């Protein structure tokens, strides 16, 4: 198999799985227990938290573990927004970029029911936030602005430094960044100091599923996301998933440390793949603005699902634009926001890589692209 669906999920690395098993067996005590075994678990949990904080440039007390990226994204509007709203009754607006993941966009209705006005920030034809339009939306009425670091469907890298600049005169606006697709090659992009809330998801960087991270600056208030035994500083009760948390802290470190090697490597692969696609008359989206590890492309006239299955016959695994919506036959959310006509966007697929992608994978992919394209180009 030649796996090119790393933006959907990555393969847990062996090192990380070993750690997970070791922690599960040797540090199984509940970190909340006061006996020494519990203390050990707690010390390990704190060390993991400290490490994540250092990697992301937050304080240890600003890092919260959740069960998924989706939960971290839900936290922003289900727990932070109500806290901000009750503190600042004079502000009632929320800005959400039009290309957010469903774990953000599916909350819009709920946010509106809570009495807030939601405005969508448009993107250009490359899937990059339109800064002029965003500047128009940013007013003193805004409570939260939610953007991405790297888009999950087309890979467009968002201009976070420029957004920080736009927010300069609005220190009261809480800025959330979904960094879930940013870890593989765009780690630096999500480290802007102005970001108030940052979401990550463990299984996008070779850890196991089941851990999300919300980094939340101390100055940002939040109501509890889950009520109960008071774990995660009282904001997210649940017995901590220590084995997966420690594994995730390790995986995050390995990802950050390998950026310098992975970035140029995937960039080279991306260029090769784009060349092959262009050669076969594919339309590539966000070609210039995309992250090194994601390529979104369409072969007009052939439905995306058909392309996915045809490539799978050649043992090449890709997906239609996002795994979460793949099976639902929804229109392609990001491509729609980029104003790509539906006639073409239904033909789009996503090729996504990670540091495990090899020369061999690329050769297989390029061959498969040629064969499949020629079949349909006839």
């Amino acid at each position, binding site marked *: 198999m030649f796996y090119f669906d790393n933006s959907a999920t990555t393969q847990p690395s062996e090192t990380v799985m070993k*750690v997970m098993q*070791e*922690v599960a067996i040797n540090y199984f005590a509940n970190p909340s227990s006061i006996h020494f075994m519990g203390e050990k678990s707690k010390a390990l949990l704190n*060390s993991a938290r400290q490490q994540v904080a250092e990697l992301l440039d937050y304080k240890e007390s600003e890092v919260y573990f959740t069960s998924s990226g989706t939960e971290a994204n839900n936290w922003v509007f289900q727990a932070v927004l109500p806290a901000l709203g009750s503190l600042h009754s004079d502000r009632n607006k929320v800005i959400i970029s039009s290309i957010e993941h469903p774990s953000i966009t599916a909350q819009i209705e709920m946010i509106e029911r809570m009495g807030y006005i939601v405005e969508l920030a448009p993107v250009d034809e490359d899937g990059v936030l339109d800064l002029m339009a965003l500047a128009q939306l940013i007013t003193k009425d805004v409570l939260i602005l939610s953007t991405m670091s790297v888009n999950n469907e087309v890979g467009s890298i968002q201009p976070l430094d420029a957004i920080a600049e736009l927010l300069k005169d609005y220190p009261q606006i809480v800025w959330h960044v979904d960094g879930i697709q940013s870890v593989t090659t765009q780690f630096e992009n999500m480290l802007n100091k102005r970001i108030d809330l940052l979401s990550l998801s463990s299984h996008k960087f070779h850890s196991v599923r089941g851990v999300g991270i919300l980094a939340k600056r101390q100055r940002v208030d939040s109501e509890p996301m889950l009520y109960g035994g008071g774990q995660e500083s009282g904001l997210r009760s649940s017995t901590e998933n220590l084995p997966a948390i*420690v594994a995730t*802290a390790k995986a995050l*470190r390995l990802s950050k440390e390998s950026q310098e090697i992975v970035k140029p490597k995937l960039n080279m692969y991306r260029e090769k793949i784009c060349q092959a696609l262009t050669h076969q008359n594919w339309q590539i989206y966000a070609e210039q603005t995309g992250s090194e590890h994601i390529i979104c492309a369409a072969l007009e006239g052939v439905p995306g699902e058909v392309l996915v299955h045809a490539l799978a016959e050649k043992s090449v695994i890709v997906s239609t634009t996002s795994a979460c919506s793949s099976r639902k036959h929804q229109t392609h959310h990001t491509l729609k926001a980029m104003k790509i006509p539906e006639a073409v966007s239904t033909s789009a697929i996503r090729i996504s890589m990670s540091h495990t992608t090899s020369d061999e994978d690329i050769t297989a992919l390029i061959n498969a692209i040629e064969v499949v394209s020629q079949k349909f180009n006839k």
Partner: protein
Amino acid sequence: MFQKQILIHYGELSTKGKNRKMFQNKMADQIRHKTKDIEKVKVLPHHDFMHVKWNHASYETIIDVLKDVPGIARFEPTYRVEKTMEAIYAKGIELFEAQTFGDNASFKVVAKRSDRTFELDSMMIQSEVGHVIGERFPELHVEMKKANYKLTVSIQRDAAYLSLISVQGMGGLPYGSSGKGMLMLSGGFDSPIAGYQMIKRGLEIEAVHFSSPPYTSPQALEKAKKLTAVLSRYGTPIKFHNVPFAKIQEEIKEHIHEDFSMTVMRRVMLRIMDQLLVKNKAMAIVNGESLGQVASQTLQSMSVINEVTTTPILRPLIAVDKNEIIAIAEKIGTYDISNEPYEDCCTVFAPKKPKTKPKLHTIQEMEAALNIENLVADAVMNTEVMTIDEFYLKEQLAEFDSLL
């Protein structure tokens, strides 16, 4: 020949007359000890100053060590260059380049020539080097009396030596030069700071912790050990005495009225301290008492508690406010440890309203109900001793390294 060196200026030590040699040697020993895992460092005590010389480690590494050595007033990193004016200019410029100048900053050059064969004399070196620096840094002006920056150029037989900045040291007296004391170390904020203050004043410290398992938690004991590890950074590895105190607490609870239990408890602790002092050849008890802070720290309480011993009890924090204590704790790194929520005395034994003005004769009468001599002897005999160094904290976390 060593490539790098630092010139150390002593603090009060310069006034110590006959004992000076001992003081210098104590400091030299400590520096050797603290650098032994870095590289072989040559420490050369002279009458008015001390040289530390080495080859490989960065200046920053050695500076970090010297900053925490008691008895050093200040020290100057000194750079060795070839004995040519070109090399001297180049190094001088490099040293100034590393500085950020304030407004209207001034400088001067001081040259010394012990090698008379060198082409230029001191005056000429000063003016030539001063000229080069002035040209390169037009924002600086020359000021002879109160220059912000003083570049020292010393021409010696083997090479030229330059120094520009002077780093503030810890002050005080060399570790151990004032003898040895035993510190009553709880897990709180005060006692580690009391220890730090006495270390700074040249007292060698051994730590004594009273633990009452199972009434007190292993974490509370661990806390005291971690605090000891922080203190050892300013001295040499510290002996940690863990006194088993539960039995005594139980006896006191059973036989002494709760209102007086604290006073009796403190008196028993001092008796134990006295015996530990003899055993370990120490001459003073150190504690973190601050006048009026709690019931045991009123003058009346202190005089009744103190009555059991004639040993000097050093209380460096007696006149120090809590916020000043906290400030030092934050500076030296004991704050976060002391702030951990584990208590070293159990609520089971904590009296609701301890007497703030106990009467000596009442206390003495009550103590008759206890077999104090045996209790003290037992506690001393069963005291566990270990040595804790500054790496103790890291070792605790090292087991997680492979996981993370």
